[in-house]
């Protein structure tokens, strides 16, 4: 490959830079708005170059005005950490036996996992089951268990990783040394699978952190809201105010509860923050994960 700068190279980089700018700039609008003085926001709307800057929104949230935001933040962190750990544990424990070619009825179990990717009952039966049989409405379990805890696709990805990268002889040798299956998984297989575990942990964690649907379906009590549910509720209130359906009386109570634009934007920024902090460390695992699992995703 020549290192000359040809017109082709210039065009390639120009397009790629333009695409990157399109990816990033919208976030800047949110970030800048969260640091914009409320009166400037009222006057000029959302802007990349505000007339007056302000850190009021952040001091308000941290200074006790946003206690529900901070609570929601801890709910999100707790659900994400617990959910990701449980999910990784269950996925690994399921994928390892499936990767063992000598396991009797292996294909039956593999199909059992796989079939869930082809067919599902949909929202109505799931909703009925979780609320009427398991009574998870308005509990933290509602954020943790439905839909997110174990994903068939990740099980299959991990099984494929085990069966293609870990030599059978290694497992056989460990078994002859008298290692139990759980020791083999923990001492031999897991250490060799760190990249895959990191990839899945990031993807599963992302799923939990970004999830707002479980909260929308199963949580009405704001005490159990995650940060995404708080963001979602604020957006619903904005929408509610802009529709003619809002009567004067109900409008009053929503208006007095609705945080200012700046505060709403700062909550959005705060909601983005953990992903942006963690992402650089997991970037290569994410790319690897997409490359491995992509085609079948």
């Amino acid at each position: 490959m020549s290192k000359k700068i040809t017109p082709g190279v210039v065009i390639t980089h120009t397009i790629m830079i333009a695409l990157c700018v399109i990816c990033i700039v919208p976030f800047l609008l949110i970030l800048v708005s969260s640091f914009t003085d409320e009166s400037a926001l009222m006057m000029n709307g959302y802007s990349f170059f505000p007339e007056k800057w302000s850190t009021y929104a952040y001091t308000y949230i941290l200074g006790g005005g946003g206690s529900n935001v901070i609570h929601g933040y801890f709910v999100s962190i707790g659900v994400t950490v617990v959910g990701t750990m449980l999910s990784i544990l269950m996925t690994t424990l399921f994928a390892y036996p499936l990767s063992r070619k000598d396991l009797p009825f292996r294909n039956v179990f593999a199909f059992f996992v796989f079939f869930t990717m082809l067919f599902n009952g949909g929202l109505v039966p799931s909703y009925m089951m979780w609320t009427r049989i398991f009574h998870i409405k308005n509990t933290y379990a509602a954020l943790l268990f439905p839909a997110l805890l174990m994903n068939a696709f990740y099980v299959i990805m991990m099984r494929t990783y085990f069966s293609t990268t870990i030599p059978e002889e290694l497992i056989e040798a460990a078994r002859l040394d008298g290692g139990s299956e759980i020791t083999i998984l923990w001492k031999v297989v897991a250490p060799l699978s760190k990249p895959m575990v990191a990839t899945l942990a990031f993807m599963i964690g992302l799923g939990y952190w970004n999830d707002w649907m479980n909260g929308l379906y199963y949580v009405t009590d704001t005490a159990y809201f995650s940060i995404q549910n708080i963001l979602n509720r604020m957006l619903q209130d904005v929408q509610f105010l802009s529709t003619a359906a809002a009567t004067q009386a109900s409008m009053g109570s929503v208006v007095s509860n609705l945080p200012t634009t700046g505060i709403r934007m700062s909550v959005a920024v705060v909601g983005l923050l953990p992903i942006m902090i963690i992402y650089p460390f997991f970037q290569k695992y994410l790319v690897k994960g997409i490359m491995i699992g992509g085609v079948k995703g």
Partner: protein
Amino acid sequence: MKTKKKKVRWRRYMPLYLMMMPGMIYLIVNNYMPMSGLILAFKRFNYSLGMWKSPWVGLSNFTYLFTGNDAFQIIRNTICYNLVFIVLGTILAITVAILLNDVTNVKAKKTYQTLILIPYLISIVIVSYIVFAFLSQDSGFVNNTLLKALGKDSISWYTSPRYWPVILTFVYLWKSFGYNSIIYYATIIGIDETYYEAARIDGATRWQQVWYITLQCLKPTIITLTLLSVGRIFYSDFGLFYQVPMDSGPLLNATNTIDTYVYRALLTLNDVGRSSAAGFMQSIMGFIVVFSANLLVNKIDKENALF
């Protein structure tokens, strides 16, 4: 002798089966149990009687769903958006993947990869905040800055359905193109470099190389990914169609899909009948389509078939 052997075998594999227990239980609860709930589509659900004891009503939920405009609207929207997403999404992703592969500077390549994936990482709720910051009637960036600068009147985006096919397609592409580009990029870096060398010796231009080598080698991936997306043609991203238009009533004709319809019918209108009928239709049609799509993949490229 035989029983002893069996016993040894049993003892040997028991721990492995035990390991699978938590996952099995979860799949049964989360995935298999709700499948039985599909019968709700043929019942008049009564909260006090529960799912099993509620009376059967035959197909009346379906006739109820298909009288009126709703069924047509949600099926049309779901399928048409998916088709547009598949075509434009594939073209964009392949273009970006080829460009990414052309970047020789390792640092630049890594930076581009990192940045184009950022929209993929963000929850759709925050995407809605961003879209609202641009499109809000009185304070949005587009109305207040862009249109003002052009001397045009502001537009009431959230009540004008005709703009939304474009807006939603844009948001979809913005959020997903990075992810899809990486998938195609993974295939491109696997192409044997000697093909290109041979082509260059034969005097092939850049375009000819892309057309005759890159695209030819990508063909199996393109076909597979397209068929798999076609298999999901009755499903839509609930967040994109519910959250981004902010659940705005006047936009429904352009934004209502099967998933948003099922949700609204169930949780805002409390209409279990129509909701479960629409959900039933989605599950069954979805299964038929994904099954046929996979049969096709199997014929073309066995390696990439799901089963």
